Every structure is written in C-alpha cells, then in structure tokens.
C-alpha cells in the first residue's frame, strides 16, 4: 500500500483554487461589481468607483497588518486606538515640518505605531497575557491617551500640510495617493509574508507554536516584531486618516479594529493561525467596503448595514470551514480506493516476506 494519496486532477484543481482563495475573492468582487452595475443605478454614478477605493484604502492597510498578527495566531484589537492616536499626534506635528514633510511624516507615523505595537508585544510575550486581553487593554489605554492629548479639541484640515490634505483630491495615474499608499503596503507586506524567512516564520509559528519553538525559531522575538509591524501600519493608516477626513477628534478610528479583523477573516485569514495571506485580507477589505458602499447608495440604514456586515463575516467563515471540511474528506477516500485497487496490480510485492504490519511484541 502506498503512503501517497494522489487526488484526481479535478480535485487537485479545486484544491489549488482554495490554496489561492484570492482568485475566488477577485471573482466575487467582480461578480458583485457587475451585479451592482446592472441593478443599482446610483452605483454607476461617476466617482463612486474612486470613492470605494479611497474608502477601502485605510481598511486595507490596517487589515494587512492584522492579517500578519492573526497568521501568527494572535490578534490585535488596539489598532483602532493606534490609528486614532497617530492621526492626531502625527497629523498635528506634520503641519510644522517644512522640509521633506511626507518622508518625515510617514516615518513618524510608522515609528509611533511600531512603539505602540511593541507595547502589545511586551504584554503578550513578557507578561504572558493572551493577545485578546492585552490588546483589549491597550485599546482602552491608547484610546484614553487619544482623549487626553486631544483635550477634546479637534485637528482641522486647515492645519494639515498640502500634501496630506490633498491625499484624495489629487490623482496619480487615475488613483489617489491614498490608494497608491495602500497598494504599496499590500504589495510589500504580501511579498514579505510570502518570500522572506521572516514571513514564513510567522506562518510556522501560527501553524504550530510548539513545533516552531522546538525548531528553534525565535517565537518570542517574532511576536514583538509582528505586533510592531501591525502597529506601524495602523500608525501609517492614522496619518492618512487625517489627510482623508480632514478633521481628527478623540473618536477618530473607533471601530476600525473590528472592520480590519472582519476584512482579514473574509479574505481567508484563519483565526486559528498559519494560513491566509495579506493580499487576501486586502481583497477582503475591498469586498467589505464595496458591499458597504452598495448598501449606502441604496440608502439602507446604517444599522441594517452593520447587520449585513456581520452576516458577511458569518457567511465567509462558514464557507471557508465548509470548504476545508469537504477537501479533507476525499483524501482518505482516494487513499482507500487506492489501497483496495493497487494490490492486484502489484503482485511482485510479496507481503508475506515482510515483518508484520501488526507489530508483534516479543515477549
């Protein structure tokens, strides 16, 4: 009996598709777009497509960071507060920078986010708090800081430098700088996740933390790093948030953590760790934003929108788990068929000359 299990070509094609669920997501986005174009006149309104992309951009940036964290079998609820804090602090600071403003601004946002993310890492790795509790706490802590530093005041668009204030009103080759920033983030994080040892470590750690540490992977260090990266991306999203919305107050960014997690999950990032991709998370963000937009142009109430968003998450997770369950079953079936059929075909293998399959205890 061979140990191999060679599934039929059609099954392996299905499996290849599910390994690259991004293709399915793109198909779904195209489908939703086509249906909406046909059925919802307001969806076709000029500028609506750019608006969807602009709205999806920030979710994408936060979602790819969240995707890394979830892939490492952790979770980060604090991204919303990180985003808000960075939006206010960095947003008000960049107005005073004359020289190389964008570069310094982005560096500051990334650094601030990384520091806040590193704080999560300390709680989780050093103090050994479960990520969900630790980041729930920092969501409050960082959120509270946001209230303290804003003193209840607002940051207005007039205080922003031009490059930031015009982040969605300018167009580079048809897309706003905001969308380009999101694309760069998705591509860079996506490549890191797929093509660097660091990225693969994250997958390994999320897939089986114990095996990863037995292998000598630096699991503790990677935890710090992955939270720092997630924080940095949330910080960057914060700076861009200031540019996109023009005014920032103490509530800026609230609720973002759940949208980002939802996007990642819809994008196929498994909450059990070790699978999914940043690209999938970004596509999840796009799909979620698009559905939100359709509901908005249909003038469906914001509360119904929330319900539908939640439903989308349920459908996505149920779909993925159903798919993986279906895929796991046929392997055993084909194994059995093979076991039954291969025997007459290979009479050249005298089983009797082998030691027993059923091990005999020599006593």
């Amino acid at each position, binding site marked *: *009996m*061979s*140990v*191999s*299990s*060679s599934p039929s070509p059609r099954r392996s094609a299905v499996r290849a598709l599910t*390994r690259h669920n991004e293709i399915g997501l793109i198909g779904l986005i195209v489908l939703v777009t086509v249906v909406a174009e046909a059925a919802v006149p307001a969806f076709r309104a000029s500028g609506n497509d750019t608006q969807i992309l602009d709205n999806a951009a920030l979710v994408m940036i936060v979602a790819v960071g969240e995707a890394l964290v979830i892939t490492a079998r952790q979770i980060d609820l604090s991204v919303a507060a990180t985003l808000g804090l960075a939006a206010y602090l960095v947003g008000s600071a960049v107005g005073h920078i004359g020289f190389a403003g964008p570069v310094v601004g982005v560096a500051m946002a990334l650094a601030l986010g990384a520091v806040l993310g590193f704080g999560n890492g300390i709680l989780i790795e050093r103090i050994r708090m479960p990520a969900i509790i630790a980041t729930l706490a920092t969501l409050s802590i960082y959120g509270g800081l946001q209230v303290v530093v804003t003193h209840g005041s607002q940051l207005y668009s007039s205080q922003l430098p031009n490059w930031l204030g015009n982040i969605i009103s300018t167009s580079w080759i048809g897309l706003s700088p905001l969308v380009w920033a999101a694309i760069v983030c998705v591509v860079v994080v996506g490549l890191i996740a*797929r*093509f*660097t*040892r660091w990225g*693969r*470590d994250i*997958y*390994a750690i*999320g*897939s*089986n933390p*114990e*095996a*990863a*540490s*037995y*292998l*000598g*992977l630096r699991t503790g260090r990677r935890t710090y790093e992955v939270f720092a990266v997630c924080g940095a991306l949330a910080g960057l999203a914060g700076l861009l948030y200031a540019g996109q919305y023009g005014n920032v107050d103490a509530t800026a960014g609230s609720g973002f953590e759940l949208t980002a997690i939802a996007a990642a999950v819809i994008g196929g990032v*498994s909450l*059990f*760790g*070790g*699978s999914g991709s940043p690209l999938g998370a970004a596509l999840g963000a796009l799909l979620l934003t698009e559905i939100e937009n359709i509901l908005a142009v249909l003038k469906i109430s914001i509360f119904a929108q929330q319900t539908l968003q939640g439903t989308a998450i349920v459908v996505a997770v149920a779909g993925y788990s159903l798919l993986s369950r279906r*895929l*796991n*079953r*046929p*392997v*055993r*079936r084909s*194994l*059995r068929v093979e*076991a*039954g059929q291969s*025997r007459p075909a290979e009479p050249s293998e*005298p*089983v*009797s000359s*082998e*030691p*027993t*399959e*059923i*091990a*005999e*205890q*020599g*006593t």
Partner: protein
Amino acid sequence: MDAATETGAGAPDAPAAGTTIVELRGITRSFGGVRALRGVDLSLRAGEVLGLLGENGAGKSTLVKILTGVISADGGEILVDGRPTRFGNSRDARELGITATYQEPMVFPTLDVAENIFAGRLPTERGAVRWRDLYAAAKRTLDELGVTLDPHTPVSQLGIADRQLIEIGKSLSSGARVLILDEPTAVLSSREIDRLFGIVRTLRDRGVALMFISHKLDEIRQITDRVVVMRDGAQIAERDSGNVPVSELIRLMVGREISDLYPARPTNPGEVMLEVKGLSRDGYFEDISFTVRAGEIVGFAGLVGAGRTEVAQSIFGIDPIDRGEILLEGLRFRPQSPRHAVKCGVAYLPENRLAHGLVPTMKVPPNMTMSIWPKLVNRLGVFRTREMNRQASELADRVQLQAGRLDQLVSTLSGGNQQKVVLGKWLAASPRLLILDEPTHGIDVGTKSEVLRIVTELARGGVAVLLISSELEEVRAMSTRLFVMRAGRLVGEFDCPVDADTVMEAAAGVSGAIA
C-alpha cells in the same frame, strides 16, 4: 544560495565509525520535587544505532529533550565532539547537527510538505525564498525516503504516519549528525517500518549517530547495535543488542520478572450485548456486521488506517452512520452523540488519550469522575468535592494508579498512568459495552499488563469489550473472537486462539482464504 548546497551545508565529512559525537556525563534534571534524571551517562557514536529502553516515566523523553536543547540539565556535562557544550535552545543543538523526531510529529499542519521539511531553513537568494528550489529539494528528500508524496500537499491532509516521515525528512535533509527517533514506529505500518529501518541503516552507514526509542523489544533487537536500559531516571544496563534475550531486557526494564504478560481469557460469554448489521460510512467503512456478547472480548485487528477507529467512533456517536443498524441488548440504537452513547451504557477509550480522553489541565480526581459528575451534585446543586475525591481514590485503587499521583495534573502523568485514569473514568460509569482503541499504545510492559488485566476483569464482570489493537500478539492473546478489517471492510472472523500468520494474511490481504 542553492537549495542543494544549503541542504548539505550542515553535514561535515563523515566521521570514522565509532567516534563518539555526543557524550552525556552525570546528567541530572528535576521537575519540581521530582527527580526525572539522576545522573545519566550516555554516548552516541557515529555509525551506530543506540537503543534506549525504559518504562514510561523512566526519563527517556526528558533525556531526549536535554539532548536536543529543548530543556536544560540541572547538573552534569554534555560533550559534543569532546568539547563541553551548553545548549541555550534547540537551535544550538540543531546547529551542531543534533536532531530528533518526537512521538507526536512536530509539524505545521497549515503549511505544505516542502515547507515543513525545510522549516526554519528555507532556501533563499538575496532574502527571497526560492520556492522552486524548495520544492525540488523537498522532492529529492522524499525520493531519498522512498515516499511518493506531493511536496505541495498541505500537511493537514496527511495522516500521522506521513507526518512522521516528514519529520524524518526534516532531519535527513538538514544533514544531521545525530538523529534521535522517539518511538517512531508506534504509528507506522509494516511497509513504513521497513522503509524506516532501511533509512536508519543507510544513515548509520553514512556515519550518523542514531538513537532509537521504542517499546517494541523485537524492533530494538532488530535495528540497534547497542541498547541502554533506563529505570527511574538512571541507566541501569548496557548490552549488545544482538545477543541479549528479550526476557532479560524486560527484567532490566521492569526490575522484576513478568511471568505472564497476558491474563487468561474470560470464558463465559453471556447474552449478545452489541449487534452491528451492515454498518457503513461512505469513504470510511462498508458493510460491517458483528456481535459482541456480555463477558466477551472481541478483538479488531488490521493495519493502521483500515477503518477500525472509524467504526468505533460511529458506534460511539462521534461520526455519522450512512447505512446499517446497531442493536444494544436487542434494542435499536441510533447513536446521536457521545453523550447519548454514554447514557446507553457505551464507553470509548480513544486512541489519542490526551487529546480526546482527558482534560490535561485538571487533576486526577475530576478527570476520573468526569463520567459521573451529574451524580456528584447534591440536592441543592452544589458539587460534592469530598465525595468526588473519595470516589476517585477508590477508582485509583481499582486501576492501580501509582501511589501519590492522585493530586497531580493529568498532563504531568506518564502515558501509562494517563491511560489508567481514562480507564478509571469509564469504570466509574459502569458501562455495558467498553470500546478500547489501542489501549496499550505507548505504554510500557509493566503497566500494559496491569491495564490488560483490568480489562479482562471487567469482561469477567459481564461487560462486553471491543478491543482494537495494532499489536497482533496482544489482540490475539486477549480476544475470545477476532475480526480483521482491511480497507474499510471486515475480511475475516476467527475464534481464538488463532495463529498469527492467518490474521496477518487477512489484514494484509494476501491469502486466498479471504472472503
């Protein structure tokens, strides 16, 4: 960097056979107040297979973890190539070429075969993983192992045997100088064991120092050159494997003679307790019919993956049934859930006791009394802890749980003691039908004989026992009747005693006598 050179990078020139690569001197290690190792001296030599024997709890696993840097020793010295060495973590040990495969394969289920084999040392060029090289290198490693697996297959879709082979491939491809195999054969089929032994011999001839841990004494004698026996955290004997009698190994391991490993079979079967007619679950097993009487032990033999566990799980209500029916004491029984099955007097000792049979983070008493928790609540709904402890200590006596274990977390018990706790749990529920799935898997000889005696006593007391075991000798010696499964079907029924060859032929499917 090319994957091929990467693969060979860790492998130094083959040292002369017999050179000591790793030497342990007076290694001690305690956990809490328990001394797991009390001064172990051991050497691993190039081109030699060292067998390590010992009962569960003798300290073998602790020793392996120290050798691989997973934990550190409290005292003593580790010499690698004659130089005193200190492992900070498993990476240090790995860099010196010391690798191990563990009882539970340490794989990454969501990643594919290739990435698992090269985890932690993926081939890269200017920081980018070279996937093409990775798959080619993985293919080569698998070919070397003689395994026809697609390197792209996600490991979550593979069984435990394949996962084990992946672990060996991991060590093999890293150019290991020392390879420790911790009970590698427990989950492998004969052909896989054959292949494994072939690989072990090849590696040995290449100058790798191997350490082979197994409970199967025949295997130890077959594959190892030298055998070290451990007991109570110390090595107590070293022998040449070739000419040491099995009985001597047992005596050394256990510290006493085990005159009769298997108890006498129960003799007086009563009424039919379980009747299964044409039971099928698509893709897993088909048309399974058999009966088990009260006071009878019915054995299920077969290869790993023949579908025996699946049948048991369907009877216990874990998995659905597509066709067929089950009668319990003549009444139709449609198991809906394990809870339902337990209520109807069915008990199931799962194959994976730690994952499915126990709550490792709880102590022994709550685990043992779990099946009767509802009865331990008084009229006000308050849980009677003292009563639970009393019941647990009674059960502990019945299953001969090692003294002083009652207050421990189940996760800290040895495999043998864990199995006794699971057994105790079902004793408490007084089942009418007891299904045992590999009850002695990974349990040392001494405990095994105790577990089997308890099972026989239960049968004598009128319980119908269904015994699934991959150890042919065990299932033959214990059963009153024996069924053989192959590829999801029942292919033979024998009255015991039956000779081993007959059963083996049925299980492997070579004899013409098979229906």
